[in-house]
């Protein structure tokens, strides 16, 4: 491998100002996992199909595997590690547990980040809204029903 020059990136990461070094061709997912030790975001497909790496970039849901790490300079990134607040599980995390919405767990961080983005956008989604919004998150263990029920449970609890 060539000796790649590194870029210092300043970002707001899960609410805190953060500076990290990355190679220009590293994806945000690689920087989060390999450079910053935030291994909650998962690599499923690495090409934007599965949603396991989803994060919020300036509040917008994106695949972190399809973002180059230097792109987040000056932007705000929220990962699964930033979803719980003050040591308390986010209601989505709690309801995923109660509804047993996971088996192996690889897809779960992506689902929770996606569902949070949905509820931020639309606090009272229909089941159709939930299924459509989560269409880009793939789960190969449980199927989707328990996941959808958990999200709807939180939505109903909010409304």
């Amino acid at each position, binding site marked *: 491998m060539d000796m790649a020059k590194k870029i210092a990136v300043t970002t707001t990461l899960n609410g805190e100002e953060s500076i990290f070094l990355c190679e220009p061709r590293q994806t945000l997912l690689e920087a989060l996992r390999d450079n910053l030790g935030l291994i909650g975001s998962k690599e499923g497909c690495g090409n934007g199909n599965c*949603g396991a790496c989803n994060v919020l970039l300036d509040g917008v849901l994106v695949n972190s595997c*399809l*973002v180059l790490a230097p792109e987040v300079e000056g932007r705000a990134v929220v990962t699964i590690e930033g979803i719980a607040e003050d040591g308390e599980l986010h209601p989505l995390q709690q309801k995923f547990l109660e509804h047993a919405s996971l088996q192996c767990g690889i897809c779960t961080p992506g689902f929770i980040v996606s569902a949070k983005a949905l509820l931020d956008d639309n606090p009272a989604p229909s089941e159709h809204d939930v299924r459509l919004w989560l269409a*880009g998150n793939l789960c190969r263990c449980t199927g989707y029903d328990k996941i959808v029920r958990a999200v709807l449970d939180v939505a109903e609890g909010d409304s």
Partner: protein
Amino acid sequence: MQAIDFVAPTSVDEAISALAAGSGMARPLSGGTDLIAQLQEGRLTLDTVVDLKRIPELMAISISSDGLTLGASVSCHSINNNQAIRDAYPALIDSTHLIGGTQIQGRASLGGNLCNSSPAADSIPNLIAHSVTCHIAGPNGRRTVPVEEFCTAPGRNVLENGEFLVALEFPAPPANFGAAYLRFIPRNEMDIAVVGAGADVVLSDDGSTIQSARVSIGAVAPTPLFVQEAGDALAGEPVSEETLAKAADLARDAARPISDMRGTIPQRKHLSGVLTQRALRIAIDRARGTKTVDELGRLNGHG
């Protein structure tokens, strides 16, 4: 894996310089949903990524009585959430709601969809139906190209070395204008079009006659096709199923698809006609003000 450079210019002129620098292997980046995937999979060789999203002109949405100028890097998410675009160009949302899932729409741009130049791109028949003009910048200055002339082959287009797309210009919709984009996929969402069809119409004031129309079909030729003869056949004709069927026949005749994993030649030719007729019906309903973007969203499986 080869190292690359990353630059994020803040003006069109800086971007032109950045793309011209080095060994001619710099590539512009917008949403990255095609570029980064291709880079990661080793299908693309480049030495510099030029991120265009810090350039105000590339991220601008300018809408007025003169029409809409959409920066080439504006994301589908930004378009979906722009009420002025939803009101004036509801058919555009047909495409921006269909390109990938939610998180792809958070990044993917119409400029990128056009520059990736896939024959099956979900925005291009729609852009053709809307008579969009492409604004291009490069080392030799600026130029414009009608969108139906932009793509030249699968993955290829009129952009010369060092050039990039700056903006898409939509004319102001005339009175009694309606448009629509429909695609066929075997799933409910997150798939690549087997066939797509975009259509626009301008009706007479009483809504009974088609004054002009444009039809475009995708995934049935090496590039998205502008089926000018189908639109021409509708001009001056009364709104009727017979009239629309004639346009559908012309679209079917114009389609020259291949058979592949997504569909066969006969299926794609058949779909070209069916989708053209349905897209025209919806465009007419919209021109008459009787169908909303959300109703059409449900037709495409997107509530």
